[in-house]
């Protein structure tokens, strides 16, 4: 499942990300007690997380390591986001469909530490992949999942290095539309996908 994790997610991402001005506002790192302010704060944080992940091509966040990133630590004003606040923010992102918890060993969801960040929704990925198949003339060809994510042809594409789970969800969308079909190998493993192109 996690064979295709992006190499960047494990190490500290680059710091060239242009943070917005709100990032330098100290109260931004404190959970605001006023519910209205908090709602606004939540949406700002989820925007920031999505932007940061997309900028650094991060597919999933592991809270235990991510909490150390400069995303959640503004060293200039020495403020950092608390872990529980961070979890709360991710929870709200999951509710909105911007993220998804990667369930651990089926234990209770509050123990989740890892989340997939959908800086593009699976539907968007599906469109992008379908366009890519069209434009590269790979209709009716059978591609392995690895080829889509890491292949030579996808090198310049936005979905290069895409997380396997996200890719699978995007493909599911295409299958539902009848534009693709999963090919299984003899031992029942998913071996590849065949694209039909849009009629």
């Amino acid at each position, binding site marked *: 499942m996690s064979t295709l994790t992006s190499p960047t997610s494990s190490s500290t991402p680059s710091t060239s990300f*242009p943070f*917005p001005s*709100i990032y*330098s*506002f*100290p*109260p*931004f*790192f*404190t959970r*605001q*007690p*006023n519910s*209205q*302010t908090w709602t*606004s*704060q939540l*949406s*700002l944080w989820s*925007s*920031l997380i*999505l*932007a940061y992940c*997309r*900028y650094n091509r991060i597919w999933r966040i592991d809270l235990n390591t991510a909490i150390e990133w400069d995303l959640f630590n503004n060293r200039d*004003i020495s*403020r950092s986001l608390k872990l529980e606040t961070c979890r709360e923010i991710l929870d709200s992102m999951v509710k909105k469909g911007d993220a998804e918890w990667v369930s651990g060993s089926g234990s209770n969801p509050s123990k989740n530490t890892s989340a997939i960040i959908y800086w593009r929704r699976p539907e*968007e990925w599906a469109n*992008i992949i379908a366009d890519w198949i069209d434009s590269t003339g790979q209709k009716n060809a059978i591609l392995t999942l690895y080829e889509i994510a890491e292949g030579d042809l996808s090198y310049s594409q*936005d979905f290069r290095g895409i997380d396997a789970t996200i890719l699978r969800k995007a493909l599911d969308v295409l299958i539902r539309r009848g534009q693709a079909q999963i090919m299984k190998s003899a031992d029942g493993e998913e071996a590849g996908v065949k694209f039909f192109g849009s009629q």
Partner: protein
Amino acid sequence: MRFWSAIDLTAAYRPVLFVDETDILVQNSVGIYEGRVRLPGYQNGRLYLTSHRICYVDIASPLTNSVAINLPDIRTIQYTAGFLKSSSKITIHFADTLSSTSSPVSPSSANGTPQSRSPSESTVSLPNLSKNFGVVSSTQSTAGLISMISWMCPICSHSNNLPPNYRASISPIPPCTTCGVKPPESVIQCALAEVATNSVTGSLANDDSSSTSSGADRDGLACPKCTFLNNSAMRVCEICGARLPTTAFNPSDYILNKSIATKESYLPFTIGRSSQTSGFGVEGEIPAFVKISFRDGGDKAFYEKTKEVLTERTWLKNLSRAKQMEPTITITKGPEPQPSNDGPITPSFGIHGLQRMVERERMHNQDLMSSLDDLHSLMKKARDMVSLAEGFAIRLAASPGVPDEARRALRESSQALSLSSPIVTKQMAGGGSDQIYYSELARQLAEFLDSGVLKSEGGIVTLFDVFALYNRARGISLISPKDLYSACSAFEKLGLPFRMRQFKSGLTVVQEALKNDDMTIGALVDWIKTAEKKQYGEEDGVTAQDVSQQFGWSVGVCVEELETAQEQGRLCSDAVVGGTRYFVNVIGDAFWDWKYDLFKDVENRDI
């Protein structure tokens, strides 16, 4: 309104008391009658019994319809129990020569009450006064004036004042305050007779401009023995020591002028009287009594208490105390042009003045020493101490080169020492409900807060602080927290300019009623907006301590205000180890179109 005179009210609609006047009883829902006629506009008010007066404060229009009767004017009071729809009443009869002579069936005689006058009448014999001259009743004026009568010591020529409670031929003859020798009784009697004749001749001279005066020329007084022309102020011939005929000194005039000139209302009733005398001859038909109707009970207690006060003649007691403190006032004001006759205030110049000053100094020192003996005596001396402190304050203010700190300390300590008016106690409410007590307490609290306490606390003060400050100012018979709470709850109902407010956390504060929460928070937020940039730098925000310094509120109040502002979404907080800092809320309105900001090109291509 013949017997009632207008009075001043405090901001909290309580009567302004004279120096040394004390509150004794309060009663709600009272109406007043003059004679048998209801006075319109005076039918629903509070009645205060003080040591000097009975004050009526109207509920509906306190500023215009608040009046008082001076207790010394009262001859008798009479109680009528309520019957069916008529509420119980107290009838007050005035010592008016007209009512007792011209209307034979005056209520008091109808009831068989003997013409019992004030004790002074039976003892001090005075010439009969003709009513045509509109003269103040001799009985009463002497009762008021007796304190002003002075006699000259035949040994040392020092002019002494008769003690206010002096009764001719009953009280022992007081010794001279300077040489300690008792004068022969004839000297005192002479002095009494003198005043009596003076008051007649004086009033005559007043009414009739072609003054027949008293045989004293402008040049001076001729001695009957040696014919030496003495200064008209002299009482004894400078050459031969013979008694001189009396001058045309009018004591009642003198007292009136004196009280106005010095603004010292230690003789409030003399003012009232003098103004009332004018109409007496004309309105002779109106019966000389007023009625007070008690619509809400409390009548019996009020009656008893008033009787007690009338018998005790509390105004005289307080007067004698006022006289003791008087010299302090004279000295701070410096010598004023005074008639050289022996008035109530002895002149304080010459050797004698020096002696008096030393004497006074010594008395003050004694006050200071004896006050520290034990707490009880301090309580007793409290009022004297306060006036002493005030005296110091005046002197301090007058003399340059005194450090500001000393002045402030003195001012604050004297403020903390005393209330401007006598303390409100549960007894004052008499038989009435607690409600009267609480509303009176609320009024006094309002006066107390208004006197600068609230200002020094920044306009918002917690109930705990009010409790501590107010009880410290009371000194004795402290109030309970429950009393305070009930009194503060009554602020808004009584229309006082304060209100109690409870924060979300349960912290209760008292603040000015004018300032609502929005205004307070608005001021707070406005200040933070400027402070953030100027003083504290762009990112630092403000803490509760900063706010406390700026607005003078206690830190607890600041935290509550800040949290309320945050609750309203006008501020946001930054919780760090050092404490919570507050910022103007920019999170609430912020919006970041990150896709457009960062991935403009890509997005455009994609869509």
